[in-house]
């Protein structure tokens, strides 16, 4: 079985994995990182979104072996010294979650969105979150939360989470 090394929320793990093991199952079943749930089997719902080497990815559509050598940040790795990430705060403040099942993925996708567009319009937030489905909120409060977090983060930049390095730039060949 392939042996992989992967950093998750700042902790390095060495694991032997079946090639077919999905990253999300590595997180949940092997590493106990159950904060990242699974909502579908086609990559549509986005509940399992994490950041992989700094950019959002659906961990149900990535093999654990593909993450070998990578840094993964999940919703569990966002808080700093017990202080929530501004996006977590904003979701709470704007009542942007109800059952909360989509929330980990939604928060990770929203943080990724702000990396590209630190002050997104309502339209930009809606388009940017098109890969994350929520069945409870109707999204109105999610949009408000993302824009609230954007305002807060432009005021006080949140300490960068581990693994949230700049995305790999395309090298010209």
């Amino acid at each position: 079985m392939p042996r992989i090394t992967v950093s998750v929320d700042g902790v390095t793990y060495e694991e032997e994995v079946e090639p077919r093991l999905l990253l999300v199952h590595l997180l949940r079943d092997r590493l106990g990182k159950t904060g990242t749930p699974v909502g579908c089997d086609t990559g549509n719902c986005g509940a399992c979104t994490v950041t992989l080497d700094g950019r959002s990815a659906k961990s149900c559509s990535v093999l654990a072996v593909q993450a070998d050598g990578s840094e993964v940040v999940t919703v569990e790795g966002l808080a700093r010294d017990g202080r929530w990430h501004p996006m977590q705060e904003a979701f709470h403040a704007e009542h942007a979650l109800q059952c909360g099942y989509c929330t980990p993925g939604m928060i990770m996708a929203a943080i990724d969105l702000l990396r590209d567009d630190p002050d997104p319009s309502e339209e930009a937030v809606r388009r940017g979150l098109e890969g994350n489905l929520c069945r409870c909120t109707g999204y109105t409060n999610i949009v408000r939360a993302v824009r609230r977090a954007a305002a807060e983060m432009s005021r006080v930049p949140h300490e960068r989470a581990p693994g949230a390095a700049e995305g790999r730039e395309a090298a010209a060949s």
Partner: protein
Amino acid sequence: MTEQLDAGLVAGRIAESGQVSEPSAEREMGRARRRKEDARLVTGRTMWTDNIQLPGMLYVAFLRSPMAHARITGVDVSAARSLPGVVAAYSGRDLAEEQGSLPCAWPVTEDIVIPDHPPMAVDEVRYPGEAVACVVATDRYRAADALEAIAVDYEPLDPVLDMTEALAEGAPKVHEAGNRAFTWKFAGGDIDAAFRDAPVVIDRAYVQQRLIPTAMEPRAVVATTDGDGFTLYSATQIPHVLRVMLAMTTGIPEHKLRVVAPDVGGGFGSKLQVTAEEVLALLLARRLGRPVKWTESRSEGNLTVHHGRDQLQRIAVAADRDGRIRGVRVELLADMGAYLMLVTPGVPLLGAFMYNGIYKMDAYDFTCTGVFTTKMPTDAYRGAGRPEATFAIERAVDELAHELGMDPVEVRRRNWITREEFPYTTIAGLTYDSGDYEAATEKALAMFGYDGLRAEQADRRERHDPVQLGIGVSTYTEMCGLAPSRVLGSLSYGAGGWEHAAVRLLPTGKVEVVTGTSPHGQGHETAWSQIAADALGVPFEDVSVLHGDTSVAHRGMDTYGSRSLVVGGVAVLAACEKVKERARELAAHLMEASADDVEFDGGRFRVRGTDEGRTIQELALAAFAAHDLPGGFEPRLDAEATFDPDNFSFPHGTHLCAVEVDTETGRCAIRSYVAVDDVGSVVNPLIVEGQVHGGIAQGVGQALFEEAVHDADGNLVTTTMADYLIPSAADLPEFTTDRTETPATSNPLGVKGVGEAGTIASTPAVVNAIADALRPYGVRDVRMPCTPERIWRALAEAEVTVPAQSRAAVPSTSEIAPEGGAR
């Protein structure tokens, strides 16, 4: 010498610990408290059922029928059993003796046909996805692999897909007893008189398409036994109902079965069920003596989580020329699917009393026939019967307005119950306790800019703009807060509708509220804390709410039908009142006063006219220490209460939707959406707004996007989220919401249910808007979901000739393939 554990010593330490709060006079009712639940949900410290790991746990996977209808002539699990990691594999035959039959708790008529419903099919499969065998293995990967080693021989039988055909003579049968499950009738007034010589009759047929509820958390079950008792963890809305139903189904004595609903990721009715997988997980844990877990995949869930809606409606409205409604006649065919599950036959009945809506009329007549088909059973889905009813009457009233050349708001105004007329007993026999349709409508019209949008609509029509504007109105009410046990009994429902709460005062003055409601996203921990904090005068932060575990909350009727606040929240208040009465008695004793002279305000009991008082926290400590109690006073302030209201709850509101329809492509986009809801008094406006937003989104989903589609063989085509489309943020507009507040008179909090209101209201608002946009083209209706293709086809086939630039090309009939054909 060992330190003696002296009660007084402990009490002294508690008093000095800094743990004990001052009482709080802050009013919590109506306060937009942020939710207590969020802390674990935004940080990933949740306990979804699939997160549970127990020592020695095994994983279950089910092999499911690839056919809608077939006889099972053989199942061979032997090859699967011998695979590495596989602990057991069973066919339905292997479990037949002990698996029992899944329950139906709502036999709506005396002669209803309730077929035996084995959790795992034994001789015949009757819907696609029905479980035919299972594997238990050491991990979920091996379990999935082993399914492929099971051989099943099927002898195909004719699928039964269309309700009308199913009722025809000689149709293939789903069950031996035939395809008619029941016919239920209800009438009020003289319907023949109402229709006789009626100047206007609007007679329409509507299709309530089959929906897949799609809670974000797929179902999951963990079952474990210690050799004596059993614990079942399940992603369920109904741990209490489940416990008693599972006890009856499995034979496990009720007191030996604990059911836990951990964090549950949404339900919308889909987790109001006693499922095959829950029963089978218990049987497997019992057989194997080890904990077992089953977690559904989404595609498995689309097949086998009960579906919603699926009714064919015929509604006729008789009216006078001035718009006054004389009577309404409704005939329904309701698709039960292959079996009657927990409340399957009752769903249309929940709508039966709502086809009259908010309107006065002389007569009403309702008939519903439940029909078996070879599809997944239907059951409760957000609104359950009431969205269907509201859709039909609100669509028909819009058609009436058009027929009479009146504004749709005006027709409603002429018929609705006016604010002076409450309480009002409707033609369907319900007594609406309170409401103010005028206020909600006026507010909504102003927020929407109704007149301006009508002017723009006229302008676009004039210009033959290819993008037309439509305005949809929906003035709804609904009956919710499933409660009055007496009424539920008269409808043959198998249980009551009360709710239970217990309130415990801890020695430090902190409060535990135990509720029989079972939240799965609603925010009960927050709202119940607010109710208790107000009632007891303790800080909001000092309250915790315990729920969802039958060993903690031993009595309850759980969460569905927008009942939690209006029944369960009121039970919390009632229990708090009892606590207060005990505290008053203790306070009077300690202050050597008469209980009648002790008044309570802001958490402090005072002797009237003096400064002397005791806080509720001090009294909690005094009860705990028990050094000085009145004679016969049990040393506790705790109390419990069970509340069973006299009436349903009747929220109402006015929803207005503006859509832009691109007549060239058929695409419909919601331009603006305004909702003014009246849910009575409000505990937490933040939570109310969230419920309305989400409700609207699901109703829009039915109007525009969602449909469970079967192919000609009866197989479900929409098995994944790539096929069954639920809207994303990019597919919905911002919803503008506001409220009017007309307190309910049926409970002391004045509250009404809010969980389903948005869904009930929004679907007709959207479709009315589409119909309004297309009416000049001669389009009478568009079937839901109103997909671009359906709108385009409706335009192409419409009667009215319109100018070429806004006219869709007429399709050539040779190319019209059946819908839903696979690529």
